[in-house]
């Protein structure tokens, strides 16, 4: 385990060496941003709307009482989405979608000698392959999480409109009620950390693939599993430290 951790840290150090030519790396970063950001928008939108709707329905189910104001459903849905559901569920889904793609792409390049070809040319292969993905992950995943929060809250609104448990006016009033800005900070820190974990862990797994097609699949699976575990662990640490 310590050997792997050491190799992971050394690989990250190699990844952030001075680029051979900044314009070529910039083009790669843009390409990765489109792939991670725009490419994941659909799945993030779908899960966010449904999670927001379900969170609203279940909160309403548990808290409807004459003693509790109905606006609290909106407040709880908002805080749940901002603090936990949007960053964490989005990250876990993206670990599957983006992470497996990164691990299998780099792993295939390794087993087909494309990484060797880069090294022979004098290209810093970890820098060219990994740093654009990590930079794109750290910038695009927070943006996806912001989209997820708004779509989740929209999902909650739709759930209210479709049922008689809470009125949409109460829900909106709840969303506006006593928002603590620290929740937004926690959300942003979580999203950036998860973006880093997904891209770097999966890139590491792909980069040290050896063998053939079977091992590429195994690397992708390992990348997704390890990054999911790391996301949950980081979630706990960030929540404990910042809240």
């Amino acid at each position: 385990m310590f050997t792997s951790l050491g190799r992971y840290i050394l690989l990250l150090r190699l990844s952030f060496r001075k680029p051979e030519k900044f314009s070529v790396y910039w083009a790669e970063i843009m390409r990765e941003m489109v792939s991670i950001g725009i490419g994941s928008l659909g799945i993030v939108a779908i899960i966010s709307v449904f999670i927001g709707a379900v969170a609203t329905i279940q909160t309403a189910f548990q808290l409807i009482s004459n003693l509790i104001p109905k606006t609290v459903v909106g407040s709880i849905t908002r805080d749940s989405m901002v603090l936990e559901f949007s960053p964490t569920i989005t990250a876990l889904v993206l670990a599957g979608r983006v992470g497996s793609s990164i691990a299998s792409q780099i792993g295939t390049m390794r087993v087909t000698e494309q990484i060797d070809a880069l090294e022979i040319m004098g290209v810093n292969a970890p820098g060219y392959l990994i740093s654009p993905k990590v930079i794109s992950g750290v910038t695009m995943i927070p943006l996806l999480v912001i989209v997820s929060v708004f779509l989740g809250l929209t999902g909650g609104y739709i759930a209210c409109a479709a049922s008689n448990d809470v009125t949409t006016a109460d829900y909106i009033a709840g969303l506006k009620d006593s928002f603590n800005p620290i929740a937004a900070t926690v959300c942003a820190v979580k999203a950036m950390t998860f973006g880093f974990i997904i891209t770097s862990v999966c890139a590491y797994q792909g980069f040290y693939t050896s063998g053939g097609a079977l091992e590429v699949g195994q690397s992708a699976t390992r990348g997704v599993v390890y990054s999911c575990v790391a996301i949950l662990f980081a979630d706990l640490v960030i929540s404990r430290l910042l809240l």
Partner: protein
Amino acid sequence: MIEVKDIVKTFGDNHVLSGINATFKAGKNNLIIGSSGSGKTTLLKCIVGLHDPTKGDVFYDAENFTNMNFEERVPIRKQIGMLFQNSALFDSMTVEQNIIFPLNLFTNMSAAEKRDRANFCLERVNLVGKNSLYPSELSGGMKKRVGIARAISMQPKYLFVDEPNSGLDPKTAILIDELINEITEDFKTTTVIVTHDMNSVMGIGDHIIFLHNGEKWWEGTNHEIAHTDNAELNSFVFASPFMKAAREKL
């Protein structure tokens, strides 16, 4: 000129190379031959720096490549072109993008100059007009030729070729050999070819090194190989009945 001195390479308890000494001459096709598992590809990877030798040194024109760090190796690596066994073309790039990739990173050529260079390289390997195809749309022989075009795009001083004829039909294999030979002569490159194809050995083997169980057993030219009394080399070269019959006629 490339010199390897006392190269030893081990993977754990597995001794793959045991003290290889050799000189690869400029403007010549230097062939490393031997049966499967003899250490040919490992030696090639030690020479180009993909493996670090356990012991020994590699010199590129008297510069010790083995002792250099990543940054120090870059100027030499810019002078290296390599054709891999499976071509190792970048899947996500077109033929033209593959060829101009090193130019994008290491030169300040304009887009038009890079396109001209790509067209020149493609013309050199008889693939004019294939610029916009992706590797998945190419045959095995075409991939090899694009690999050669990419390898020569930076006008290399050293050309390394790993199993250029594997998976190719005899006619295409001879075309690839002729192409490598022409490039070696025209660009005066130090060409190192790993192969076990006897057509290549007899056709373009200016200088041949025979490896057996990780050791250098024989060194000579394609003219000398037919008359050697080295038993291991003979059993390798004249393994087929056809080659045995051909030898008797020599």
